């Protein structure tokens, strides 16, 4: 089986580690070899959070520079920051809604213009899927379901060896009762947004 190296990046509180964990569990359920890695620690305090999922039989739990097949980013500036993991064939899926860091809020540094950031990424990598995932999460009635939206998008365009059905089963099993519906909706909205891309 071909190895797929997927990097998830976001900001503390966006649910990036959960997305990686759920994808890992779906892979296990589908009989696809998988390793996941996470960096804990500063996650709670607004820092950058990165995790990786390797499908298809690689043993190493992490992804080196220039070796990500897919990057899923929860925040546009973090997409730019993580491009060192990409090569020109990398598929990048990114939420376009900015979550400016505090350094911007207090005027220490400017936040790059969103359209220009997207244009820049497009120029660099093979394929870019960019959309306002936060809006879809809100539409799904769970503003914290951006991770589900992006998982949906990943399944739409990532050519993963894991069936969508299995992924949804894991989402159902691992969501709190009152969020199941919204999370599945968020997954579907993300899937549709990316599939049309």
């Amino acid at each position, binding site marked *: 089986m071909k190895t797929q190296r997927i990097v998830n990046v976001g900001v503390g509180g966006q649910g990036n580690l959960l997305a990686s964990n759920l994808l890992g569990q779906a892979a296990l359920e589908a009989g696809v070899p998988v390793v996941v890695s996470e960096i804990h620690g500063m996650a709670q305090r607004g820092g950058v959070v990165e995790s990786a999922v390797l499908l298809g039989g690689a043993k190493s739990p992490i992804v080196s520079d220039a070796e990500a097949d897919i990057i899923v980013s929860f925040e546009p500036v973090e997409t730019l920051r993580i491009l060192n993991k990409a090569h*020109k064939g990398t598929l990048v899926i990114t939420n376009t809604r900015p979550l400016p*860091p*505090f350094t911007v*809020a*207090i005027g220490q540094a400017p936040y790059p213009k969103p359209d220009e950031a997207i244009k820049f990424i497009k120029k660099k990598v093979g394929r870019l899927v960019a959309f306002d995932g936060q809006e879809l999460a809100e539409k799904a009635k769970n503003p914290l379901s951006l991770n589900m939206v992006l998982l949906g998008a990943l399944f739409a365009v990532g050519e993963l060896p894991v069936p969508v059905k299995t992924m949804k089963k894991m989402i159902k099993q691992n969501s709190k009762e009152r969020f199941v519906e919204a999370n599945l909706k968020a997954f579907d909205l993300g899937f549709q947004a990316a599939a049309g891309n």
Partner: protein
Amino acid sequence: MDKLLTPSAGQTHLLLGNEAIVRGALEAGVAFATCYPGTPSSEVPDTLYRLRKESPDKVKYYFEYSTNEKVAMECAAGAAVGGLRTLCTMKHVGLNVAADPLMTLAYTGVNAGMVVLTADDPSLFSSQNEQDNRFYARLSGLPMLEPAGPAELKAMTVYGFKLSEELGLPVLLRTTTRVNHARESVTFAPLGKVKTKAEFKKNPFRFVTVPAVSRQLHLKLLKSYEQAQAISEASDLNPITGKGKLGVIVSGVSANYVQDALDDLGAKNQVKVLKLGLSWPLPEKKIVKFLKAVEKVLVVEELEPIVEQAVKALAQQNRLDLPIAGKGPGLFSRAYEYNPRLVRDVIAHYFGFKYKGTTALKLDDTPNLPGRPPNLCPGCPHRATYYAVKQVVGDQAIHPTDIGCYTLGLLPPISMADFVICMGSSVSSSGGLNRATGKKVVSFIGDSTFFHSGITGLINAVHNNHDFTLVILDNGTTAMTGHQPNPGVDTTAMGDPTTHIDLEGVVRGLGVTHVTTIKPFKVRASIEAIKEAVDHKGVSVIISKEICPLFGRRIAPKSRKPFQVNLDKCKGHLDCINKVACPAMFKEEGKARINPLQCIGCALCAQICPENAILPVKAEG
């Protein structure tokens, strides 16, 4: 019921490395567990704590968060000498604190299996250094297990208890962040039987380490070492795989990088790999045999060249002159963790394999990106305390600080962290800095850190008449590492039957005469109290008492009452933003604004605003 408590064998789950340790301990029938938390080890104790709380009828082990690692080690030693299977966990620097008991526990040995987890952190994701704790196996003479991933981690935890009982010695289980925080599929064996009571047979000639006894015990340890080495020689945890005239010797997570590299390079038939899972004592005979069968060897080990030097020494003793390398220019570094590409590149370069990988993008035209450093949470009481102290001493005082969330006070605009080397150093270094410079010293320490190792420093300061003010940031939890309880925490809300120790009483008991407890969100009163403390000649202590809101909301959820800026009143001084950097605030059109989704209503900014422009959302209508 939690999956980790599944009694039967056979199920496969995607487990975090640290969960795999817990499952392994349960399969081995662990009866006693102690820890002091610290990344990347914390999910082990946190999981043990959670399981005991959620399923008290299914869980048979005793568990505690100990006051510090030395205490954890000694408490565990008591249980293991007393005959119970015992697990003791800590991060790498924790073993420095626990090194004293460990070194002599190696002499007495234990009467039941004892596994000590030391979780190293190459690349310093959340640590103050990246020391290589494989040295502790060499220093203590104790065996060491080094898993490459979660599945091995579970298996080695189970085996660790067995090996410990076979040798009568504690066993070190050494992980790195990438093993603790990786997830992979782990297959369960049945849960073990738990023996919860045992008998201690007195034997002063083994357990009372006066010089005359220890002289004998050292010889006994050296004997045990030989026995351990024989086990290591025969162990299938030290397997040789692949074939060919080239050799790689590897340990830890790097074994995975080597596997992937050889796959990518198509070199499985040219390179033999000796993987060291039971990595101390070294299987010397096996290594020599390996060296004789190959023409060139690369040693792949993160951090220090420990195995490399040992292998070179073995080659010299056996008059083998094949090239052996590991660290060096064009090869591996002694700093930071490795990664798959690095290992592949070095293997290709050293052995002369060709590989065409992906090329990095040219990114030198990337726009300047705003940094995203971690920051104290909105409503964090540490921010309020720092603000108040700064109003009293300005930029003139020296601020020794300590390890915890409050170390983030390092960042501007707070910028009140001047020296920290290890837990507890804030208190003890204050006297030195004050006597050396004659300057005002106001130091900071968290409640968990104070109980961990601040108390002895404070006794020293009182006894030796030092002159400084210590601020104890009592947020009622060990926040940084995931909100574990500590001796000062009132755990009644959490339903734990522990005794809560009164911090102010402790400080007074240590002989500090000037002690004041403040509520940091009452800014004016806090400033007054700090002024008095700073003016006091000698040691004074301020206890700044306010619960960490992240933790508080978890144990007793309550609604937030956010504040907002009245834009008619705001004159755009921006003191609120510029002085305390709360992440709930931002600037728009020259005026301050508050994100109502982030604000928890601590009211610190409202007390800073000279225009009284910041008011609760409700009151504004």
